[in-house]
């Protein structure tokens, strides 16, 4: 059971940029949350507070009973796994295999368990056959998969993805969706920052839209993603099928292809 509670969070970077300006929200254990919003809205800054990489300038962030201002990042790492937006900032080992094994080793799992977790992570992300490769020799798209696997192997109750689908082809996006589904099935909390609104609509039940360091919208995906005008304030458009549904005059907010066909089928 891991809940994240954010109370009136402000963050000012050295140099004076006020990236977060009073964010309050709560994410319950097992929730699937998509975070959207304009470039520079503060999405990355927000989630870096969840594992203590950044400290509040004002306000507080709690992960269950842990006050992120008081415990170390290393300690929080057992609860919250964060896949960086830029894989180059995350990867530092000589081989993919070492990279994936690094986290579990630090968390003090029994060797058999650690091994099983690594194997599962490599399988889910389909990089098992590249375990001996140096991450730097892989293409940026595969590096992203390595970054993902190295967090999955830590088996944390909360997993955060920062722009996981950028540059990925459909097969790869489907793979990421499978990872999200697998985590959901295990009851884990998944928080995903994404500009890929279609992906967001298809995979996340709750959506939070940030704008200029504040929460603009927060609620069920169908509620948030239908509000074209408000979303436009933070440079987000409703998903393709939602727009299509609106243009066709459908009452329900369409999020997936199934939604669309069901609604159209009803009409006929």
């Amino acid at each position: 059971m891991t809940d994240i509670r954010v109370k009136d969070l402000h963050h000012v970077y050295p140099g004076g940029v006020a990236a977060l300006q009073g964010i309050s929200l709560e994410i319950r254990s097992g929730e699937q949350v998509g975070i959207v919003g304009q470039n520079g809205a503060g999405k990355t800054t927000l989630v870096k507070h969840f594992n203590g990489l950044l400290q509040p300038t004002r306000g507080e962030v709690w992960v269950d009973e842990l006050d992120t201002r008081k415990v170390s990042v290393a300690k929080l790492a057992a609860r919250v796994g964060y896949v960086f937006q830029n894989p180059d900032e995350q990867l530092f080992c000589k081989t993919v295999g070492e990279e994936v094994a690094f986290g579990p080793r630090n968390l003090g799992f029994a060797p058999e368990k650690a091994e099983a977790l690594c194997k599962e992570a490599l399988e889910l992300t389909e990089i098992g056959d590249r375990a001996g490769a140096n991450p730097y020799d892989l293409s940026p798209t595969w590096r992203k998969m390595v970054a993902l696997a190295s967090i999955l192997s830590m088996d944390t109750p909360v997993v955060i993805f920062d722009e996981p689908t950028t540059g990925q082809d459909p097969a790869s996006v489907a793979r990421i969706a499978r990872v999200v589904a697998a985590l959901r099935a295990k009851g884990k909390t998944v928080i995903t920052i994404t500009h890929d609104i279609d992906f967001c609509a298809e995979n996340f039940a709750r959506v939070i839209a940030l704008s200029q360091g504040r929460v603009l919208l927060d609620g069920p995906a169908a509620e948030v993603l239908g509000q074209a005008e408000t979303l436009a304030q933070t440079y987000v458009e409703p998903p393709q099928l939602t727009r299509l549904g609106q243009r066709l005059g459908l009452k329900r907010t369409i999020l997936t292809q199934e939604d669309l066909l069901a609604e159209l089928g009803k009409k006929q």
Partner: protein
Amino acid sequence: MSIVELRNVTYQYPFSERPALEGIDLRIDEGEFVAVIGPNGAGKSSLCYTVSGFIPHFFKGELQGSVVVGGVETRQSTLAECVRRAGLAFQNPFNQISGAKYTVFEEIAFGLENLGVPREEMRARVERMLERAGIADLAGRSPYALSGGQQQRVALASILVMEPQVLVLDEPTSQMDPIGTREVFGMIKELAGRGLTVLMVEHKVEWVAAFADRVVALDGGHVIAQGRPEEVLTDPLLAERNFGLSRYTLAARAALQAGLWPAGRRLPVTLEEAVEGFKAAAA
């Protein structure tokens, strides 16, 4: 007159087992906006490197065939001359900062300094560029202390400001917010309208369909289809081969099977086409 002309180009990276590009024939006319699509590993970035001269000047390995940009064979000129004719914005937005500059403004001016642009003109061009790329408020910031999308805008602006004849953009909107993405497409379309030639790798087919003049589909180092966006993006071959298609196309294909899309009608690639098609089906 083609400004870019690739004839039977094959390229293989050093130490790799198979060619990244194989027998590519591609001509691009002046002022054309060509989008390149394809799955991961198709050779999209390699094509970008080839047109902008990084292959063969920076990446060694074997380049066969001829690559002519602006009437000059890339092999015959220096890399600096190549990038002047065909400027490249790289796929990875995070490592394009020169490291020699203190502010975003200086960073964008860096390329112009290297081209010897006079100071007054340089200032004016950088200011205009900052405005157009939506980063005027970042002018005084350190190019390192930016969000992902902001870094990508700086990287794009740094190349655009140099005004090359051909713009080669490798997934230039991968970190950008949705409306920002559409604006960038709009801006590039406008530049193409003024005679600039654009070769742009993109996964976001909705905007490719709406803005590009021509789509080139690349797979396994080969061009497997090219033509008008609505033709290429509805080609059944693409669906079989792991190409990204718009949700409109996918939904209409499923609807066709369910009898909810008019039989015989071309699948839609844009919102407008989808709306028309579904309305026709309902009527």
